[in-house]
């Protein structure tokens, strides 16, 4: 029983990381694709939007990873052995991004160093979700080969393939889309809103292209993605709901419904994660020889799962209300935060 609580938390942590952390990464991606004259503006809007909560957004990744290594050590260690290289790159991205964001906000002197921080920030905002997507894709692509004897097939081809890389780009586009939708509601200026709407369109198109590439790759590389997505009622329902909500979102964007579109964008991500995880659940890592690592079978000792589940339940009693209050109180009184420093 507790095992399902733990799995649910793992899934929720991933979802929240994808939505909240994703929007966070996306803000950097949007900045990357913003023309020079508008950059400063975008940066200010972004800072006001994510400043107070950005640290919290990234805690979801820590929660997910802790659940993995405490509850599912074999899955954690298999992934960290065979996906060592993309994980290290992702970590570098996390370090660079977190510090660059903090540094640019807290550097007492405003000078050319800001340019350096900005560069680091935008590039790492792009690289981190790219590799996050690659890692997720690699887990299910069936390329992890426990019996590999040479370096390339054990540590490189496990993640460097069309399918995984496409998922990486899809993740990047998704993050950018989320951020654009989020930022529309953070500004009151018509010209800026228009700019964010354009960015949302661009990211939407990018996501469609990357998504098509994912499906093409799955066919080429014999990954039963189409079957996972369309082979069951939940998958079809989720995809249809996501499509309907996307159409709805585009209608509402032009009517200035800034909060509903956020909910819709979050809903789409939820549906995407649901479709992609539902069918091969509980098999979280699929191996080359057709074997797999399963959340149901490959978990830690029962006592550990019970303790972990209880810790998560108790922890969320503290975390969730505080987090909701944090987000709510800074939404309620939007004002220029930077002025206070």
């Amino acid at each position, binding site marked *: 029983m507790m095992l399902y609580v733990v799995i649910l938390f793992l899934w929720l942590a991933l979802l929240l990381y994808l939505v909240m952390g994703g929007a966070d990464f996306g803000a950097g991606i949007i900045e990357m694709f913003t023309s020079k004259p508008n950059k400063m503006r975008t940066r200010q809007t972004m800072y006001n939007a994510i*400043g*107070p*909560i950005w*640290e*919290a957004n*990234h*805690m979801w990744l*820590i*929660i997910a*990873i*802790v659940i993995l*290594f*405490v*509850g599912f*050590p*074999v899955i*954690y*260690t*298999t*992934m*960290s*052995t065979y996906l*060592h290289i993309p*994980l*290290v790159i992702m*970590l*570098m991205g*996390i*370090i660079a991004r*977190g*510090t660059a*964001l*903090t*540094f640019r906000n*807290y*550097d*007492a*002197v405003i000078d050319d160093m800001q340019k350096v921080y900005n560069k680091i920030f935008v590039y790492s905002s792009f690289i981190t979700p790219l590799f996050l997507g690659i890692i997720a894709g690699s887990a299910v692509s069936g390329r992890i080969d426990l019996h590999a004897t040479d*370096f390339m097939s054990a*540590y490189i081809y496990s993640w460097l393939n069309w399918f995984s890389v496409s998922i990486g780009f899809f993740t990047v586009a998704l993050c950018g889309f989320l951020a654009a939708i989020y930022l529309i509601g953070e500004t009151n200026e018509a010209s800026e809103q228009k700019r964010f709407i354009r960015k949302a369109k661009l990211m939407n198109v990018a996501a469609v292209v990357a998504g098509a590439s994912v499906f093409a790759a799955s066919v080429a590389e014999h990954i039963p993605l189409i079957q996972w997505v369309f082979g069951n009622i939940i998958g079809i329902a989720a995809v249809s709901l996501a499509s309907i909500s996307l159409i709805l979102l585009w209608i509402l964007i032009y009517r200035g419904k800034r909060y509903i579109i956020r909910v819709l964008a979050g809903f789409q991500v939820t549906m995407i994660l649901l479709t992609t995880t539902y069918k091969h659940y509980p098999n979280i890592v699929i191996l080359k020889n057709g074997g797999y690592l399963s959340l149901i079978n490959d978990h*830690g*000792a029962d*006592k*550990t799962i019970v*303790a*972990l589940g209880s*810790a*998560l339940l*108790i*922890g969320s009693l*503290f*975390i969730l209300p*505080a*987090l909701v209050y*944090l987000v709510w*109180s*800074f939404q309620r*009184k939007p004002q220029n*935060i930077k002025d*206070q420093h």
Partner: protein
Amino acid sequence: MAARSQMALSLGFHIIFSCIGMVMPFFMAVSHYLWLKTNKPVYKNVTKAWSKGVAIFFATGAVSGTVLSFELGLLWPEFMKHAGPIFGMPFSLEGTAFFIEAIALGFYLYGWNRFNKWFHWFTGVVVGISGIASGILVVSANSWMNSPTGFDYINGKYTNIDPIKAMFNPAWFSQALHMSIAAFAATGFAVAGVHALMIMRQKNINFHKKAFRIAAVFGIVASILQPLSGDISAKMVAKRQPAKLAAMEAHFKTEEYSPLIIGGIPDVKNKKVDYALELPGLLSFMVHDDFKTPVKGLDQIPERDQPPIAVTHYSFQIMVALGMLMMGIGVIYLIAQFKKRNWFDKTWFLKLFIAATPVGFIAIEAGWTVTEVGRQPWIIQGIMRTKDAVTPMPGIGYSFYLFTAVYLTLSVAVIFLLYRQIKMVPEIYDNTKPSTH
């Protein structure tokens, strides 16, 4: 070897970032409290300046911590495969504490003039408390590696796992206490040292004096309490890890009236220590509370189970010596307070504190070296050897160079940023006219 170096490097940096990140919120909260109570703007300015420091260190501590949670698996998959479910409990609670800290920090940093002022202050306190809680939990996980409990190890299998028992392993309390006090002492002295330097340079004297006092009091109280917790820790080590204690002391021979060896150069080949000060019976007394009972020496430990003796011994000596030094400075400060002498204007007094700025952190690094190197060759004391835990992936050397470069850059960046913060104090935080003494 590269994996060990990389882990040591990552932890070595993380320990500094996170110590400052978990202790400075307390300084900040005290100063904030004084501002709310006395309404003197200088306290508000100190609070704001420190909160920037907290934000910088929290961010670096958070990312270096995130990296570590991955590195455990990236570098030590075999260890994590077995140990994860046993000693993971403190990590999952630490995740919670850390999360709360991040939320509270969001409230605190961005909450000026938005919330009830006491609620705002309280969120600052929560930052500190959850920070300390995370620290204690992580140390508890480390102490499990020193005194593994909460499972049975039969024929190479880990059975009957009890994560709660593993979390409250015998060493958790002594280690967590020792580490927490050390964090306060080191951060207190470091922060006080920086402010002392600014006082000496006659810059914003009132501002820096207030800041100096708050930090110094924390550092001094902690440094005076530290030997007590050190004694508790040493007794625990003697009981659970005799090899580590013997290496710390360079104690080669098991004999009655075991001497306490201070300083010296261990000669591992001839099993003796040159140029050391030996105090007969004192080691026996410290471990067993009587002067006669022998303390297990390295001669009773098979060579393949012995840690590197010289490194452990030197590190231990450095830690103790620096700890004593800090305590000494603390006593001088207390004398100044007690005699109501105003030594703050005296250059020698300030110089003493300036010189002591890095001392606490050197002591922490040395102490951490003692506990980690002293546990070798084991990764889990008596159960799993470090060499059996390492990742099978070749080329970890490159990863080590990469991480070294990253951490060095990060440290330079943090120092650069703090320097700029301090330089800008007159413009941002304390633009009153140069204050009189």
